[in-house]
């Protein structure tokens, strides 16, 4: 079965990527000049104390040896223990991951809605001032990164017109007892729309900040491939059949223009997830990225290692998912 074999090959390259990422982080954080153990001990601790802790965290062994031990443990589901909080890394990471996932997916939905609408509008009104205006807005949106959009949004919609919350994930005053870490999903399922509203009030600004650059990319690429499609003969033919411009764009051009955009959205979505690191910091949103920065500042080696692995896993998963969607949507591959 060539397909199964190809799937295995693809899986293997994904593993190589993950392994490479893990090794690089492992080596990088272990050549840290500052001794992480020293930071954990009260002043006046003896050399013997330090050695004891080193042995405890396995830091007295050589780097390849440490990596091997870590890898074997990971494969058994043990990601180690955080140095600062003394809790299992796995619990810490899975506790924060849902917050980051909810934020990223919200941002993705906003970006697709925004970028898609803008691209279709610009195509419908091509050659007019509407297209020009959308182009300029898209150009500016693309030029500036999420970090700057986040700051601007805080200023405008958080301070000047304080419509949204600018820090945290949920108002503590709400006193809602969450059973899971997927707050938004849970509030929706339990039909607590006051909680949903509060969550959105916290989530929307960071999500929009993340979404703006991606929306601009979707706009540009979708518009470009729509434009190319509009030159194809089947569009001309549809015109001679008596269809309106709107129906030609949405019915004939869009299904063909979406495919190249889709592949790019995959790559760009991983960038967006990467962007949550600083955006979560900016909005004091309790997600994985915010925890990652604390972990780096505190030199919490096992935690850093765990978080990076989760991010890498997430990224490769997104890419795999995009490839499969592409195959499912493309009739050439579907019937090959």
């Amino acid at each position, binding site marked *: 079965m060539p397909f199964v074999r190809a799937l295995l090959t693809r899986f293997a390259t994904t593993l190589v990527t993950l392994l490479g990422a893990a090794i690089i982080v492992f080596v990088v954080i272990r050549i840290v000049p500052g001794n992480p153990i020293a930071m954990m001990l009260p002043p006046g601790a003896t050399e013997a104390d330090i050695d004891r802790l080193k042995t405890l965290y396995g830091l007295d062994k050589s780097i390849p040896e440490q990596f091997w031990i870590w890898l074997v443990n990971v494969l058994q589901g043990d990601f180690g223990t955080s140095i600062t909080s003394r809790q299992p890394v796995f619990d810490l990471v899975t506790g924060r991951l849902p917050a980051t996932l909810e934020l990223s997916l919200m941002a993705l939905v906003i970006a697709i809605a925004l970028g898609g609408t803008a691209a279709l509008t610009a195509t419908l009104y*091509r050659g007019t001032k509407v297209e020009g205006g959308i182009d300029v807005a898209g150009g500016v949106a693309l030029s500036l990164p999420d970090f700057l959009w986040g700051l601007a949004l805080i200023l405008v919609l958080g301070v000047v017109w304080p419509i949204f919350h600018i820090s945290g994930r949920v108002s503590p005053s709400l006193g809602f007892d969450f059973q899971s870490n997927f707050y938004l999903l849970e509030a929706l399922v339990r039909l607590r729309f006051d909680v949903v509203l509060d969550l959105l009030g916290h989530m929307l600004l960071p999500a929009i900040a993340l979404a703006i650059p991606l929306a601009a990319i979707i706009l540009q690429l979708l518009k470009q491939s729509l434009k190319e499609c509009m030159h*194809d003969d*089947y569009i001309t*033919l549809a015109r001679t059949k008596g269809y309106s411009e709107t129906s030609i764009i949405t019915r004939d051009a869009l*299904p063909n223009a979406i495919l190249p955009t889709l592949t790019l959205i995959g790559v760009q979505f991983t960038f967006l997830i990467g962007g949550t690191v600083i955006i979560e910091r900016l909005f004091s949103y309790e997600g994985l990225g915010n925890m990652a920065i604390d972990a780096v500042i505190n030199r919490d080696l096992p935690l850093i290692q765990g978080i990076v692995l989760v991010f890498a896993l997430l990224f490769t998963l997104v890419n795999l998912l995009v490839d499969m969607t592409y195959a499912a949507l493309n*009739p050439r591959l579907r*019937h090959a």
Partner: protein
Amino acid sequence: MSYLAIKDLTVRLKNGVPLLRKVSLEVEAGEVRALVGESGAGKSMIGKAVLGILPRAARLTGGKILLDGEDLLTLPPKARRERIGAKAALIPQDPLTALNPSRRIGPQIIDRLVDILGWKRPKAEARALELLDEVHIQDPGRVMKSYPHELSGGMRQRILIASAFAAEPKLIIADEPTTALDVTVQKQILKLIREMQERHQTALLFVTHDLGVVSKVSQTLTVLYAGKVIEDTNVRAFFEAPAHAYSQALLAATPKYTDPDGSLMPVPESIITAVEQEVAAFDAQLNG
């Protein structure tokens, strides 16, 4: 009264450069008229103007297009679009890009009948099967369910021909329909177009750069240069003795394997100059 009558059609680029210069021509039901000329002669532009698919950079600035006695240019856009959709059809140049790659063949033939002409779906489907059979496609049922990439170029052009005839239009515009095809496939497709045209007694406007093809499909022809009609004649007269010097040069430049020495003569500089002057004089007369 001819089915299609074009009178003094002028098309310009937005910056004023003329693409068509007061072109007039007529096509009757059952007649095949070829539009001939080199690139830039404006031969495709005529068909595009009739079908209302001029490129955005071009503007129709004068003249009349009478389809079945009705001046298309006086109709509001929606009515005009629907009138064209019901009475005329296009056989496009490149069969590889003229079918929507993400949709199955069946709906692509049927959609016009259902959406624009308001047929019932089963009736439209029956009609599509009948048409595919008429253009000599084996197993029409299977082809209806196929995607374009699963079919060969010749097959796709057959489907496009079937689709063009689906609504029984009385005018068909074929825009270089065989240029992208191999010569052996071209022959089959040309014969098919003629066969369909004769059976349905359609008026056919056939755009081509190939005089060989002209002699095979058409009864009348219009020769264009720089958007101006140079010669309007019938095929037999043209191939016996073209009236205009430019037409003569064009015929002499056309390769002919039966007479290698008598063909492929470059168009002389002097004739190009003369015809350029003729166009300039025509322009001066228009503006003056």
